[in-house]
């Protein structure tokens, strides 16, 4: 009888505990933990602002070994949102056993899924991340207010998207890991990632809210902000358990 139990347990283990990696994402603004609504921030252009909404898509994950071998994981799409704690924990499944030194992923949704009709799950248009008048995903969204904004109610509205050349906003991110990430049946590794929203405005293309407090179509400003936020991620820690 014990043997039967053991068999069942083994079977369950092999089904559910396939090699996986847990990503834990925290959001920051200029190094400080992000606080929606209440906290006030100042960008490099000198505009004070707050953030009311911050969300974006992540997809196309891959793991890179020390010898440069790249393991592309099964397609999966995640909508990460500051106001949804569960969305900030991402489970990468079917990670082959190994030791990896870099993590790579896309901010955004593959071009083909932008013109393949309605999707479900994280890509369901009911999440408000799909443009209705000009089909395509909003890859990343940041909203808030700033006294510098000349929009109604001093709002900030950055909806960054566009999948057709020349205005393509998907960005690949490759992050070196501070210590090797080990995957295998005996490990439950975690990667602690941080995304800093200040990079949207303080990167290579500095944004002043006096000049631009929002952008909500595909176009050059969207491309520039995507160039900025391509650098918003950093790896804080690897926990090999």
């Amino acid at each position, binding site marked *: *009888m*014990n043997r*039967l*139990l053991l068999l*069942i347990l083994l079977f*369950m283990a092999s089904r559910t505990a396939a090699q996986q990696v847990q990503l834990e994402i925290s959001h920051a603004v200029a190094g400080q933990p992000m606080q929606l609504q209440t906290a006030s921030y100042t960008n490099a252009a000198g505009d004070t602002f707050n953030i009311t909404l911050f969300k974006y898509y992540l997809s196309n994950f891959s793991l890179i070994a020390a010898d440069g071998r790249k393991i592309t994981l099964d397609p999966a799409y995640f909508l990460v949102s500051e106001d949804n704690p569960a969305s900030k924990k991402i489970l990468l499944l079917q990670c082959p056993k190994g030791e990896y030194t870099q993590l790579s992923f896309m901010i955004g949704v593959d071009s083909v899924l*932008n*013109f*393949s*009709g*309605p*999707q*479900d799950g994280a890509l*369901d*248009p*009911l999440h408000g991340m*799909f443009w*209705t*008048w*000009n*089909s*395509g995903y909003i890859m990343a969204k940041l909203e808030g207010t700033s006294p510098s904004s000349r929009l109604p109610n001093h709002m900030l509205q950055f909806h960054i998207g566009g999948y057709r050349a020349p*205005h393509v906003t998907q960005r690949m991110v490759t992050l070196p890991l501070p210590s090797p990430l080990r995957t295998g049946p005996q490990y439950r590794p975690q990667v602690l990632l941080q995304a800093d929203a200040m990079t949207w405005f303080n990167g290579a293309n500095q944004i002043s809210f006096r000049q631009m407090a929002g952008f909500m*179509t*595909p*176009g050059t400003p969207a491309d520039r902000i995507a160039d900025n936020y391509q650098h918003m991620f950093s790896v804080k820690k690897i926990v090999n358990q």
Partner: protein
Amino acid sequence: MFRKSAYILIAFCLWLWIAGRDRHALTAHSPAVEYYQLKLPDSLPPPVYDFKNNPLTKEGIALGRHLFYDPKLSIDSSISCGFCHQQFAAFGHFDHAISHGVLGRTGNRSVPALFNLIWQKDFMWDGGVNHLDIQPLTPITDENEMGMDLGVLVKRLQGNKTYRKLFKAAYGTEEVTSQRLFKALSQFIVTMISFESKYDSVMRREPGVTFTAEEQGGYRTFTQKCASCHKPPFFTDYTIRNNGLPYLPSMNDVGRMRITNNTADYLKFKVPSLRNVLVSAPYMHDGRFFDIFQVFAMYDHGQQKGNTIDPLVKNGIPLTEKEQRQLYMFLNTLTDKKFLTNKDLSEVLITD
């Protein structure tokens, strides 16, 4: 010990069954569905629409038809898709220049007629929508049209007994998702096929059907002066062009440029089909012409020749009075009465 392990075994089997069932429900149709084959004339090019991703079933089409005619798809349950897309007007909006919406609001463009959409690869007057299945998202959520939040709509339909039954029949489970909703709407909309006009009978050399002398004259004029853009058999080449229609400052509609941010696309709009044209007035993206003779007059002498005007019409299309009369007679042969009265497409009354 034995009993304990038996319990565990039973629980485990149950878990396997539930896990397996969920996956099955998401991917497979219920075994009861009846597949449906669209009847299309042989001579047509293959459709752009990929039926592999949305195989037609009688149950799916029935659900789509119910959705199409259901005012519950709008925020105050006042406006259905069929409210603006009327069958007798080839699913355009009879006598309305621009679209109407909830709470007495109006949009800023004319309601396009709906038929033969499986050959069309982008939608709306500016081609901004890139897939037939995602097209209904725009009118459903636009605050000037149906004004509905998609998440609220999914919950509303899930709470309705009739829809739970219809979704189960079409998809095997009662679950309402936006993807299922959109695909079902497409199932119905793709059955709007119009190739049964007098013109089609003449082209197919059906016995006893011929053009009158006036229609024949109009066909000649059409072939010489209109057919490069309004290309048979669809009577559109599905491109986006500036036909020289004067810009109206009060509407400030820049056309395709809104989508591409490219000044070369200023004032470009989709070439509409001329099938059923005489029953789907008014004309142009803003419905400014209520009479087809106003359209003829625009091409003859009323264009505004900006720098994005299409080369094919930049010198205008001179049309004598006789040519205009004959053209009208020819366009009349493009009206497909069988389509306009097809009972499978007609409105269903929804009371719950």
